[in-house]
Structures are given as structure tokens and as C-alpha cells.
């Protein structure tokens, strides 16, 4: 058995002189924690893997007339839109589901700082991952059109790409918000699928059969508002609709979740 080698006395007077933990360090640690577990590592890897699988499938199966950038971007975007929010969710819920929060919140007792760091990491990872998909999509477009011998077309604008990045980050933030609100990995992931698969169906049906809701939908259906980032030229009104829908479905529940989280008991 090892013994303590240090013999210095432990004096409590260090308290007042110790500098507090800088925010940049908490962000760096939280970013590391997102990917230093087996599940975190493979979720990150799966972004690259599914992107490659998606462009391979497009090259192999898509007819020549749709060999363009948008086809590649859409093919890659679908799996990534599911994986990214899970990374965000798990970065929050694992502190409870894996109970590592006992250590995290004793080392940084101001929970708001930890959550702010996790939010920063969520946006950083979201932007980075969307940039990766743009690059992989472009590579796929070049390779695919070269193989099939059609002209390489770039049917996207810079603002379209930026809107795509924003949509990715919003989706990831939804995952983050549900993690904060529910604080359980399984529950939050189920809730994410309700949010992105069940709610749009409900809203769509409502809009189809109730004319009064048809006009209202763009303002209150977040998924509807986000989808337009991908395939429409955003007008001022569309941005306002995205803003209101985000306030209702994202900002409000996130605020409630953070307030509850800060007062909750960590066991």
C-alpha cells in the first residue's frame, strides 16, 4: 500500500487567496466529457460514418438528374439531425443517469456555470458538425458527379448553408433543452422523438382540417419554422415566426428547466 509522501501541513487559510475556476476551463472540461466515454466517442464517430454511408448510397443509387449538392446535403443531414441532439441531451442527462453530477456539482457548485458551459459546448459541436457535413457533402457531390459523368452543380447559396447550420444548432438546442427539463437519458430521447416526429404530424393534421390553424401554424410550430431554413429563402416574417416558435418551444421550457435544475437535489 502506498503512503502519503507529502508532509506539508494543511492550512485552511488558502480559501481567500484561491482564484475561482474560470469559465473557459469549465467549457474545456465539459467538451472533453462529451467525448471521453464510449457512447460519446461513438456518437461523434457516427456523424462521420453515417455521412460517408449517406454519400455512398447517393453515389450508388441516385439517378443522374438529381446528382447535385442538395441531394448530398439532404442525405447527410437526415442522420446527423438525429445524432447531434442526442449528443447534446446526453451531455446533460448523463450527470443524472450516470450520477456523475455528484462529482461535477461538488467541484463546481454553481450549477448555472456548468449548464452554461454545456450550452456553449452544444453550440460549438453543432456548428463544427454542420461544417463537417457541408465539406463531406461537397466532396460527395464532386466524386458522385465525376463518377456518373454529369456536370457538377452547386445549387446552394452561402446564406442557405448558414441557415442549414442554424437549423442544426436549433435541433441540437432542442436536445439540450429536453435534457435540462427531463434529466433522464431515456426520457429525454423519447421526448425528442415526440418533439420532432409526433408533434409535426399533429400540427400538420390540425392545419389540414382546421383552416384557422393553417394561418397560425407557422408561428407556433417550431419544426415547421425550422424546416423552412433548409428549403426556403427566409423572409422577415419567416424569421419572426421562427423566433416566436423558438420562444414557445425552446426558450420557455429551457428557462423552466434551468430554474428547476438549480434548485433540484443531486443524489
Amino acid at each position, binding site marked *: *500500500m*502506498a*503512503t*502519503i509522501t*507529502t*508532509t*506539508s*501541513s*494543511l*492550512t*485552511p487559510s*488558502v*480559501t481567500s487567496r*484561491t*482564484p*475561482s*475556476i474560470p469559465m473557459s*476551463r*469549465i467549457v*474545456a*472540461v465539459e467538451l*472533453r*466529457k462529451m467525448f*471521453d*466515454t*464510449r*457512447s*460519446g466517442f461513438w456518437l461523434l464517430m457516427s456523424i462521420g460514418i453515417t455521412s460517408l454511408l449517406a454519400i455512398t448510397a447517393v453515389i450508388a443509387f441516385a439517378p443522374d438528374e438529381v446528382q447535385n449538392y442538395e441531394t448530398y446535403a439532404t442525405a447527410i443531414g437526415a442522420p446527423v439531425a438525429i445524432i447531434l441532439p442526442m449528443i447534446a441531451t446526453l451531455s446533460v442527462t*448523463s450527470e443524472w443517469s*450516470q*450520477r*456523475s*453530477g*455528484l*462529482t461535477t*456539482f*461538488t*467541484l*463546481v*457548485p*454553481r450549477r448555472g456555470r456548468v449548464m452554461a458551459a454545456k450550452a456553449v459546448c452544444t453550440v460549438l459541436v453543432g456548428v463544427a458538425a454542420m461544417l463537417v457535413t457541408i465539406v463531406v457533402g461537397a466532396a460527395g457531390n464532386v466524386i458522385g458527379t465525376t463518377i456518373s459523368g454529369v456536370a457538377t452543380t452547386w445549387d446552394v447559396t452561402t446564406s442557405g448553408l448558414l441557415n442549414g447550420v442554424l437549423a442544426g444548432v436549433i435541433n441540437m438546442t432542442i436536445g439540450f433543452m429536453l435534457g435540462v427539463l427531463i434529466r433522464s437519458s431515456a426520457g429525454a430521447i423519447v421526448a425528442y422523438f415526440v418533439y420532432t416526429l409526433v408533434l409535426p404530424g399533429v400540427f400538420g393534421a390540425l392545419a389540414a382540417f382546421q383552416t384557422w390553424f393553417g394561418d397560425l401554424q407557422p408561428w407556433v410550430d417550431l419544426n415547421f419554422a425550422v424546416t423552412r431554413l433548409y428549403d426556403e429563402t427566409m423572409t422577415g416574417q419567416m424569421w419572426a415566426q421562427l423566433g416566436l416558435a423558438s420562444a414557445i418551444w425552446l426558450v420557455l421550457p429551457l428557462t423552466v428547466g434551468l430554474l428547476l435544475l438549480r*434548485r433540484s*437535489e*443531486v*443524489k
Partner: protein
Amino acid sequence: MITVDLLTKHYRGVTAVDDISFTARPGRVTGFLGPNGAGKSTAMRIMVGLTPATSGTVEVLGGRYVDLPNPGLQVGVLLDASAQHAGRTGRETLTVAARTMGLPVSRVPEMLRLVSLTDAEADRRVRNYSLGMRQRLGMATALIGDPAVLILDEPANGLDPAGIRWMRDLLRGYADRGATVLLSSHLLHEIEAVADDLVVIGNGRIVAQGSKEELLAGAGSVVASEDDARLEAVLAESDLTAAVVDGALHVDGDPAVVGQVAREAGIALTGLRPADGAGLEEMFLELTADSQRDDLDGAA
């Protein structure tokens, strides 16, 4: 220094911690003793800000724990060795803690050596750790910042006898260097072997506290004689209760008094000593008997 003042925690209809006050002092090991469900863990979680108190205050190093600028460097905390991410390796778990505190990562192998986790073990994921290994990893996390205060909830759980001995020496060493050590346990002998001060809790209330010597002073004596039956009778005449436990006669009086009674009755003693080890256990069982019964009823 940890100062707990009139601390109370209510859950819906249950009082987990009921108006407790005590001080854990620097340079001393304070044992927080009580049966399962007595409120030890809840009280310790409140101390480090994980659980909000209903009322009362806790001061750690003269202020609230949550106001410490970098708590890991000042207070080492181990509340539950199982509460570690199962998918992270032991080494990574320690690295995350070191980085959070702003310590050089060279502290990580030092701590692994201190708690006797081998390099191969450190590179395994925590899900494959035994409870004893998790306990060692948890201790390494608590100690990595070289803190002046230690708050440890049942740190000896799951350790082998050599590990328990190691833990005892380690805590003694910390206290001797001036640290405040608070450790909880339901293992009486473990606490008795290392603690200087004791706080005994049952059903959320403190039922006894003081230095170990004070609390053991009234523990009585163990006596053996050539005629135990007659000795028991003369002790009873002097209002001293005696009972045979494991073949030895336990008396609820100091050895000096018991010896006096025996001499006056002309009974030759073959052995007489203060009831040390067993004394605390008897006190503990006696003091916490009510809460233990309640626990059994509650579980049924």
C-alpha cells in the same frame, strides 16, 4: 472546520435531518455514526450544496460551501463511490477532476499510486470496477486537490481488510497534518479505530456527541472472578447491573467501583478491564435502537 448549525431537512412527510448541530474540528477525525437511513448522507449532501436544506446552516472553512472559489482544492468530497460515469476510465475520471481544479495532469498517476490502482486498472472503464476499486477511485478524486477538509460518506465500504487499514492510516495522516476529517459509517469498529470525536445520529437526530473518550467513559467494565454468580449478586446489591455477554460478565460501572465491591465481598477477581470495544457498540445499538426498529417496520 465544518460547523453545522440547527440543520433540518424535511421531505414530503418525512424529516430526514432533524435540527442537528455539531462542529468538526481541524486536526481531528470526526466520526459521523448512525444506522442506515439515519440521515447521515442527506446531511453530508447538504454540507456540499447538493441538497437544499429546509432550515439551518452549514459553514465549511468559515463560509458556505457553494461560495468556495475552487472547492476541490479546499474540500475533498466522496459521497457515493458508485456515482461515477460507468463509460469513463478511472484515469479519465481523475483527469476530468484534475482539469476542473486546474491541477497539472501529473497529479493523476500520483493519485493512482496513492490509492493503489494499477495502470491496467486505471485504463479500464468504471463499469468493470468492483466496489472497492470505485471506492479507491473516489478517494483519489477527493484527495487530488490536497484539501484541508475531507467529507467522506462510508469510505470503507467494499474495501478489503488491508484497504480499511490503509484508509485508517491515510485519514489519521491527514488529520495529523491539520485537516478536518468528517467520515460517516455504520461500521462501529472502523469509526472507533480512527475517530477522535463522535457524532451519533439516529432518525435524523443527534443522540450523542463528544470526544471518543468522553463517550466511552460510561461504558462500564468487563469482569471475571472465581465466583461470577456471587459477584453478580453483590453487584446487584450495589445497584450495578451485570449481564453475561459471550461468557464474560459486563457491568455498567467503572472498573474502580467493581473492584471495590468485589474486595468488600471477598471475591477474588481473575480479570477486570474497562469495556472498550464493545462499549461503543452497546451504546450505539442502545441509542439507535428506536430508529433501527422504525427502519425495519418501514421496510416491511
